[in-house]
C-alpha cells in the first residue's frame, strides 16, 4: 500500500545569553567541570530561581520571527524526574502556559513554498552532563550546563517527507542564527532535534500510531532516520502488523532506529506550576521593544535580493546564508551599484580569501567601502579587472586601500595615447612578419600585438585603447 508520512519536529535550541536562565553563572562552553556553578543552579536547599529577562527577549524574538502569538501571561512549570544530571530532580520548563503558540514558518519544497505550523515555543533550563568512567563503575557529573537557557520549538505535524523535515530544520536554523539567539551548531548540541512520525494510507485523514525518534545530531541524520522509519513502519503495516507507540534511538553507525522505551514505560512527569516563579507578564511595550531588534529573515531577504537586485537564486541564497555577508553585500551596493558584479566578487574573490584565512565576514579586513572603491577603479578603467584581483589580495593582506596600492605600485592603467602610440609603433616595427599576416587578412593576429604591448607595459596598458591604436596604425599601413 502507499502511505503518507505525518511528521512533527521538536527542536531544542541553546540560547546565546551571557548568563544562565535562573542565576548569574556564565553559560560559557568548555570550561573546567563545575566551575560555572552556584547554589542556585546546583539546586542547594533554600535557594530560589530568578528569571533572566534576556531569555524572554529571545523567546519573544523567535515568536515574532515565526508568526506566533505571544502569551500576555505565561507560567513556568516543574517537570519532575530523577536523574543525577538534574540537581533539583525537576526541570523548570513551561507546560500549560507556554510563552508563544500558534505560529508558522514557510519552507521551500520541490512543489514550491509550504507553510509549516509552529504549535508552541517554550522556555526551559538545560540539564548537566554525566561523564562515565569506563574503567571503574563510577560516574561524574558536570553542572556547568545546568541552567543554560533553552527554547523548545514544537512544530505541528505538517511535515510529509524527510526532505521537508530537513528543509524545515534548515529554515529554522537560519532564522535562529539570524536572530543571533543561537549558534545553530547541531553537532555540538546547541541545536537539537527529536522527531515524531506516523504513517497513514495515502488519502486518509486519520493519524496512525507514532514513534518518537531521538539521537540525531545532523540534518542528514534526521533525514536518514525518518527515511528508515518510513521503511520500517511501512513494512510493519504491509504485513498487517501494528506500529508500537514508543521512543526509538537513531543508530547512525548502523543506519537503523532501535526501540528505547514504550509508552507504558514513559515517565509521569507530574507537571505543576512552579510556585517559586511568578507568571511571566509580557505587555505590548515589551513586544514592541523586541520587535525593533528582529532583522529581516533569511528567506524574505533572499526573495528581496532576487527581486530588488535581479540576482539569480544561487547568488541570493549564498549571500543571505550569513546575515553579515548579506549586510556586507548591501553596504557595498550603496557605493557601487552593480549588484551582479558585487555579488560575483563576493562569491568568488571575497569568500575565497575569507576561507583561506579561516575568518568570518565580520573579521574581514576589507570593508564594503574599500571593496566598492576597488570595483570603481576597475569600472572607470583606472586598472584592469585582472590587476584588480591582485590588488584585492593585497588589500586583504595589507589592509591598505585599493587606491593606495595602485598608486604605490604604479598599477594605474596607461591611458596616455602618445605613450601607447610609441609602444604600438615599436611592436609593429619589431614584428614585420605578423604585420604582413594581418594585412594579408589574418586579423586575429591583433591579439598577439595586444599581448606584446601589455608585456611592454607590465599589463598596465588599457586594453581597449591598445586595440584601437593597433587597428588605427595597421589600417594606416594598409592604406599606404
Amino acid at each position, binding site marked *: 500500500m502507499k502511505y503518507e508520512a505525518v511528521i512533527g519536529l521538536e527542536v531544542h535550541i541553546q540560547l546565546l545569553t551571557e548568563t544562565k536562565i535562573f542565576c548569574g553563572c556564565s553559560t560559557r562552553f568548555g570550561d573546567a567541570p563545575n566551575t560555572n556553578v552556584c547554589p542556585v543552579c546546583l539546586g*542547594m*536547599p533554600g535557594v530560589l530561581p530568578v528569571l533572566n529577562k534576556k531569555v524572554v527577549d529571545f523567546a519573544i524574538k523567535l515568536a515574532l520571527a515565526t508568526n506566533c502569538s505571544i502569551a500576555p501571561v505565561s507560567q513556568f512549570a516543574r517537570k519532575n524526574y530523577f536523574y543525577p544530571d538534574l540537581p533539583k530532580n525537576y526541570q523548570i520548563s513551561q507546560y500549560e502556559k507556554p510563552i508563544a503558540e500558534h505560529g508558522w514558518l514557510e519552507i521551500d519544497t520541490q512543489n514550491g513554498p509550504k507553510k509549516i505550523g509552529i504549535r508552541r515555543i517554550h522556555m526551559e533550563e538545560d540539564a548537566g552532563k554525566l561523564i562515565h568512567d569506563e574503567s571503574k563503575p563510577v560516574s561524574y557529573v558536570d553542572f556547568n550546563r545546568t541552567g543554560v537557557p533553552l527554547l523548545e520549538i514544537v512544530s505541528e505535524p505538517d511535515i510529509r517527507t524527510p526532505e521537508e523535515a530537513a528543509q524545515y530544520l534548515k529554515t529554522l536554523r537560519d532564522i535562529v542564527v539570524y536572530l543571533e539567539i543561537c549558534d545553530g551548531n547541531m553537532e555540538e548540541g546547541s541545536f537539537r532535534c527529536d522527531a515524531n512520525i506516523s504513517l497513514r494510507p495515502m488519502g486518509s485523514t486519520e493519524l496512525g500510531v507514532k514513534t518518537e525518534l531521538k539521537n540525531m545530531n545532523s540534518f542528514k541524520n534526521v533525514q536518514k532516520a525518518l527515511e528508515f522509519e518510513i521503511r520500517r513502519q511501512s513494512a510493519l503495516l504491509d504485513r498487517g502488523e501494528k506500529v508500537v507507540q514508543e521512543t526509538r534511538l537513531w543508530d547512525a553507525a548502523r543506519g537503523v532506529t532501535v526501540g528505547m522505551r514504550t509508552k507504558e514505560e514513559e515517565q509521569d512527569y507530574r507537571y*505543576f506550576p512552579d510556585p517559586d516563579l511568578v507568571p511571566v507578564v509580557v505587555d505590548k511595550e515589551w513586544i514592541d521593544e523586541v520587535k525593533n531588534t528582529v532583522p529581516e529573515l533569511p528567506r524574505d531577504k533572499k526573495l528581496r535580493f532576487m527581486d530588488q537586485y535581479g540576482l539569480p537564486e544561487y547568488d541570493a541564497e549564498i549571500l543571505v546564508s550569513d546575515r553579515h555577508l548579506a549586510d556586507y553585500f548591501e553596504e557595498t551596493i550603496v557605493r557601487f551599484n552593480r549588484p551582479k558584479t558585487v555579488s560575483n566578487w563576493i562569491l568568488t574573490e571575497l569568500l575565497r580569501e575569507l576561507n583561506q584565512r579561516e575568518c568570518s565576514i565580520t573579521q574581514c579586513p576589507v570593508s564594503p567601502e574599500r571593496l566598492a572603491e576597488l570595483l570603481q577603479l576597475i569600472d572607470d578603467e583606472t586598472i584592469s579587472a585582472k590587476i584588480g584581483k591582485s590588488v584585492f589580495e593585497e588589500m586583504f593582506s595589507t589592509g591598505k586601500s585599493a587606491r593606495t596600492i595602485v598608486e604605490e605600485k604604479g598599477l594605474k592603467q596607461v591611458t596616455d595615447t602618445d605613450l601607447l602610440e610609441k609602444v604600438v609603433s615599436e611592436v609593429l616595427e619589431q614584428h614585420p612578419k605578423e604585420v604582413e599576416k594581418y594585412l594579408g587578412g589574418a586579423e586575429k593576429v591583433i591579439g598577439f600585438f595586444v599581448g606584446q604591448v601589455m608585456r611592454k607595459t607590465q599589463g598596465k596598458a588599457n586594453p581597449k585603447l591598445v586595440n584601437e591604436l593597433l587597428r588605427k596604425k595597421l589600417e594606416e599601413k594598409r592604406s599606404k
Partner: protein
Amino acid sequence: MVEQWTISEIRSKLLKGAISAKELIQELLSYIENHNSYINAYLTITAESALKEAEEFDNNRKLLEEKPLGGVPIAIKDCLCTRFIRTTCASKILENFVPPYDATCVEKLRKAGAIIVGKTNMDEFAMGSTTEHSAFGPTRNPWDTDRVPGGSSGGSAAAVASGMAPCALGTDTGGSIRLPSFYCGVLGLKPTYGRVSRYGLIAFASSLDQAGPIARTVEDLAILAEVISGYDPKDTTSVKKEVPRFSEILGTPVKGIRIGIPKEYFQHSIDPEIERAVEESIKVFRTLGVDFVEVSLPHTDYGVAAYYIIAPAEASSNLARYDGVKYGFRSPTEKPDLMEMYLNTRAKGFGAEVKRRIMLGTYALSAGYYDAYYIKASKVRRLIQQDFLKAFEKCDALITPVAPLQPFKIGEKLEDPLALYLVDVFTLPASLAGIPGMSVPCGLSSRGLPVGFQLLGKYFDEEILFRLAYAYHREIAYSPQIAILS
C-alpha cells in the same frame, strides 16, 4: 536574669554598659546549657561564633550603638540557612549540611547586629504540628514537659518561652509559627506571603512558606518584623512594598477598629478554656472602643483538605533534590547501582511523616489525578481567599482561636495523623490565602497551660495586628512570664 530580658532591656543594658555583650552571651549560653537537655529546643548551639561576635561589639562601641539589634541574641529555626552553621531541617538527610550562604532574613538580622546563639528544633522539614517529627528527638513544652510545644517551629517557641532566647525566627506554612507560639505562650507573627524573602528558607511548600518572628512582647515582635521584611531580588515572590515602622505605631489608639468574628471558627468543638480566652479578649477590646461584627468564611472547613493536597504536592517536588548525589546523607549500597542508592538514601534519610507527605503529594500530582486533586484544591484555595476578601469588606481584622485544643501529651496523637492535621484547622486558611496572622498570648489556663487568640489581617496589613496586640496587652497589663523550669 538574662533569660528574662526583652530586646529593649538588653539593648539599654548593653548601651549603658551594665553588662558587656560577652557576659550577656556567656550567661545565656550557660542558661541554655542548664535547660536545653530536657527541653531540646536547640539542635545546634553556636557558642563559639556567638562569643566572638559579642567580643566584636565589646571592642567597638560605635558598632553596638549603630546596629538596632547590636548584641541581641537570637535563635534561628533550623530550616533557615545560616552561613557556615549546620542547617539540618531536623532531618537525617541534612544532618551534616553546612550552607555557604545565609537566608536573606538571617542576613538582615546579622546586618542589624543580632547574634545567632543556635539553631532550633522543628518537625522534620517543617512537616508537623508538634515538633515530635524531628530526627533528633521531640522538643518539650516548657510549661509542662510532658506536653508538645506545638510545631513545627516548636524549638523556637520553646526557646523563647523558657528564656533560652529573647527572640527567635520561625517559619509558618500552615500554622507553624502561630501554633507553637500559642502552645508556648509567646507572640508569633506569620507575615503576609511575600513580605519576607524566602531565599534560604529550605522549602516545604513554596507557595505557603513564610518566615516570621517569635518573641515575648509585642515591641520585640515588631522590631524583628521590621528588620526581616522587605523585597528581595533573590526571591521573585517577595513583594516590592514599603515596610512600615511597626515598632513606632504600636501606641496608636485602636478605637473604631472593626474586628470580624468568623462564625465558622466557633462551630467546631473547641476546648472551653480556649473559647473563654477568646471571649475574654473580645471583652477587653470592646472596652478599648473596638467594634465587633460577625462575618462568614464559608469555605473554612475545606481548608484542611485543600492544604493537605497543595502542601504535600509542592513538598514532593521540593524534597526531590535530597537524593544523595550532591550533598547531605548518602546511603551505602550493596551494588554500585543508582536506583538502589536513591531508594536507600531516601528511605533511610527521611522520617515517616515526611515520607507520608511525599507519597501524598506525588499521588496528587500524578497523571489522571492532577485535575481531581491539585487543580480542585487550587480552586478551593481561591474560594478561601475570596472568603477573606469578602469578610474584610466588613471589618479591618479577624479574631479566632489559634487551635481547638490545648497542648496535648507527647506521643498522644502520633498514631493518628489525621487528628494531628485537624489541629491546624484555624491556622491553615490564612496560610492558603496568604494573609498575615498573629498568635497573641492571654496568660495561663487553669491547668497552667498558655491560652491565647489569633488575629488575622488584610494583605500587607501587619500594622493593625501589632496595634491590636499592643493595646490588648497594655490594657490587661500583660507581663510575659518565663516558663518555670523544674
